[in-house]
């Protein structure tokens, strides 16, 4: 359920009236007030339903009254659904790596000679060249980092230490990585310009993305898949790339490849140290460019970034600088002069869409960890329409069957039960509208099922009334005993189905949640309409002394 600015007013209004009716039901009385309140409830309910039925409303109405709408699930309106898994373990490793680099700098400035590496599990390993500096090291570490655990590796005799996060800090790192991933993905998806998208967290490390109306989620998938780590490195023009590809790169260098082109991917030999990263980017825009170079992206840097870039360009005029995104070299232009304004232009034979997406990705920032798409569902609009039609048809037929049966079998009492049932369904959809709940195809099945199940209460009550009448009780007594004695069975049996519905709501996703919602709400509105409201009618008749016999 997308948590849009949820206006609680509609549901509170419904609840208030319902509680009033319930109170009167419990304290007894003529039933007349209850019936008026029930009528009011119906009117409020219908008003709340109007927006969902696409009835055009005058503006004086919409400015005063809340207009909540039922959301249609993707299986009914068509669209794409993506479930993403954020690799939080990688986020933790990256965070530890940054700590390791911090450590390196601190150790160096404190003249402690050590080698800092990272083992496969992510833990940072510090090997002291001089074991006697042990206490100095521990002292320093303890002072600076109280959110890390430092454990001694026994094998090396006190010279090697493994650094990890404390459990508390670990949870923090994971949680904030998740938040950042969520924010970044949300930014990217928002910029796609698709209406009413949903990006929400599912569990500890999963993100749900819903794109209504989108049949082809490829572009969204590409946007999501980019980790978007932007790096600037210097190109090594003194050595041959071909040599490096054959014999391995010289120390301090690495081989990176450019974007896929006609002739394959170009190889670049770059110096490994990262001069600047994407966290200094404040904005990225697409410019149409001329006929030659096509659309390009201008990237603005913040003050720190501008200073850094100034320094880099000043120190390296004549050399090439590689602009790298997710380890792919996008371009490697020659630095012709110092660039103090903090603006970078990235060209590279982009289509307008590619340039656009690049800008989106640079603007929204890097993902703290890679994201995998573990589930993808796309429903076409024609299937959605068919599903709605099927759902409506089965509902109408089911409703007719039950309504006719009740009247035929229980005559007067059956007619009353039918009224209760109709009110039940009306209230059910009104509550869903008030909550701006999502209607899915299984949700429609849940409504159909509610038709059959809620009428049970009336069957039980009517059967009980027949029994009491047979035993010679007066109509008034029969009504009283019928409702009273049937209640324990009705209550217990509905609690069990309600509990099953709650389990389904907790455990289910999307369509299944829709089913659980209609089931549970249907039980509540059913108990209310089929018991409380029908009783009000009998009480009214009794108070008017019109109940000489009961037609049941």
């Amino acid at each position: 359920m997308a948590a849009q600015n949820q206006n609680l007013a509609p549901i509170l209004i419904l609840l208030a009236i319902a509680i009033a009716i319930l109170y009167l039901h419990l304290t007894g009385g003529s039933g007349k007030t209850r019936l008026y309140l029930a009528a009011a409830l119906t009117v409020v309910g219908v008003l709340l339903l109007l927006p969902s039925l696409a009835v055009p409303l005058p503006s004086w109405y919409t400015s005063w009254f809340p207009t909540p709408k039922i959301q249609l699930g993707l299986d009914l309106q068509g669209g794409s659904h993506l479930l993403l898994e954020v690799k939080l373990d990688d986020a933790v490793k990256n965070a530890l790596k940054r700590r390791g680099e911090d450590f390196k700098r601190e150790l160096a400035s404190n003249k402690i000679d050590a080698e800092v590496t990272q083992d496969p599990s992510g833990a940072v390993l510090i090997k002291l060249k001089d074991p006697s500096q042990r206490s100095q090291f521990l002292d320093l570490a303890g002072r600076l980092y109280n959110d890390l655990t430092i454990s001694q590796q026994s094998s090396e005799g006190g010279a090697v230490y493994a650094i990890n996060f404390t459990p508390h800090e670990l949870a923090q790192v994971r949680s904030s990585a998740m938040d950042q991933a969520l924010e970044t993905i949300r930014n990217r998806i928002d910029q796609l310009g698709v209406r009413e998208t949903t990006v929400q967290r599912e569990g500890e490390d999963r993100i749900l993305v819903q794109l209504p109306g989108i049949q082809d989620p490829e572009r969204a998938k590409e946007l999501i898949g980019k980790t978007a780590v932007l790096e600037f490195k210097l190109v090594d023009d003194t050595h041959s790339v071909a040599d490096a590809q054959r014999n391995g790169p010289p120390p301090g260098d690495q081989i990176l490849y450019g974007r896929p082109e006609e002739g394959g991917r170009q190889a670049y030999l770059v110096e490994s140290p990262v001069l600047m990263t994407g966290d200094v980017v404040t904005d990225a825009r697409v410019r149409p460019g001329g006929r030659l170079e096509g659309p390009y992206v201008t990237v603005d840097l913040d003050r720190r970034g501008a200073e850094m870039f100034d320094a880099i360009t000043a120190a390296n005029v004549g050399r090439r600088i590689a602009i790298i995104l997710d380890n792919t070299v996008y371009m490697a232009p020659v630095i012709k002069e110092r660039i103090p304004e903090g603006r970078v232009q990235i060209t590279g034979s982009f289509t307008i869409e590619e340039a656009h997406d690049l800008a989106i990705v640079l603007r929204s920032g890097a993902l703290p960890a890679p994201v995998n798409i573990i589930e993808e569902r796309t429903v076409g609009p024609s299937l959605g329409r068919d599903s709605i039609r099927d759902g409506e048809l089965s509902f109408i037929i089911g409703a007719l069957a039950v309504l006719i049966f009740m009247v035929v079998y229980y005559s007067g009492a059956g007619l009353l039960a039918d009224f209760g049932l109709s009110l039940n369904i009306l209230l059910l959809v009104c509550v869903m509208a008030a909550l701006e709940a999502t209607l899915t195809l299984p949700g429609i099945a849940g409504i159909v099922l509610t038709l059959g199940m809620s009428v049970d209460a009336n069957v039980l009550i009517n059967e009980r009334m027949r029994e009491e009448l047979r035993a010679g009780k007066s109509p008034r007594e029969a009504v009283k005993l019928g409702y009273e004695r049937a209640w324990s069975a009705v209550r217990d049996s509905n609690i069990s189905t309600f509990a099953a519905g709650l389990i389904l709501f907790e455990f289910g996703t999307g369509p299944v949640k829709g089913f659980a919602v209609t089931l549970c709400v249907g039980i509540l509105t059913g108990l209310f309409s089929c018991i409380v409201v029908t009783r009000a009618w009998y009480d009214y008749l009794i108070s008017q002394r019109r109940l000489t016999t009961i037609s049941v």
Partner: protein
Amino acid sequence: MSLQLIKPDVNIDFVGKRYFFVALSTAINLAAILLLIFVGLNYGVDFAGGTLVQVRFTEAVSGSQIRAALAPLHLGDLTVQDFGKVGHEYLIRFAEGHNVRNLGRTIGDALNKAGNHAEVERVETVGAKVGHDLRTDAIEALVFATILMGVYIAIQFRHVSWSFGAGAVIALIHDVLVVTGALVISQLQFDLTTLAALLTVIGYSVHDTIIVSDRIREDAAKRRREDLATVMNRAINETLSRTLLTSGTAITVLIALLAFGGPILRPPAFTLLVGFITGTYSSIYIAGPVVLFWEGAGRRRKTLSRAA
């Protein structure tokens, strides 16, 4: 104008024939278990992972034509299943799917190229790990729900006998097995919505058992002189009308859902229908006998305290 299908003085001997029905039920349950093991459910992509494509053709097309058209895509092992309109709508399943860009469009194009006007209506891809996780979650949910229901009933009816809880649980397990067996035989897709239907069956099966048990509880309090078997039989007969009717209304509605609700709702509608029918049966023929076995049919109930 009202009807009365079940006469008020009906007196069928349910309890007397219980050995027969218990034997029958046990046989059915065993058959269901065997079917489950040797034939197996038709797991949907939700649980098995992989990719599912729902395709509709304007002219009738055969399964082999579809395979031929998709062969050049090298999708691996394909399953082609009838769905919806016969000969026109199909479900295509295969294990891969992540490596192909624009899967829906690619498949649609391949089918159209082979000359069949195809429309891809739905594509669902689920990673293997997700499928596995869901399977474990599903079993957990089923077990949890069953135990929860059993405990609830045991507590509610404790004054008559603790064994009501046991009776309800055994009836529940019976219902789940029968429905599962039916799903194996029909080979309908077992996916998340089908599982949801199964969980609902658990919730509803208890609903029915409660109606009968409630009456047994009430009668047991009133007629303290009679032995449990007689009380139970009378209670079941008294509630026969309402048991059949409440199930009847639900079952009518489910038949409408199954017949008119479309092919996507077919697995859950079928599950609910079979589940509700056996739920009614098990309330009468299983829950009761279990309690009797526990308490002993003829024994006078000396320790009957006040019924709740």
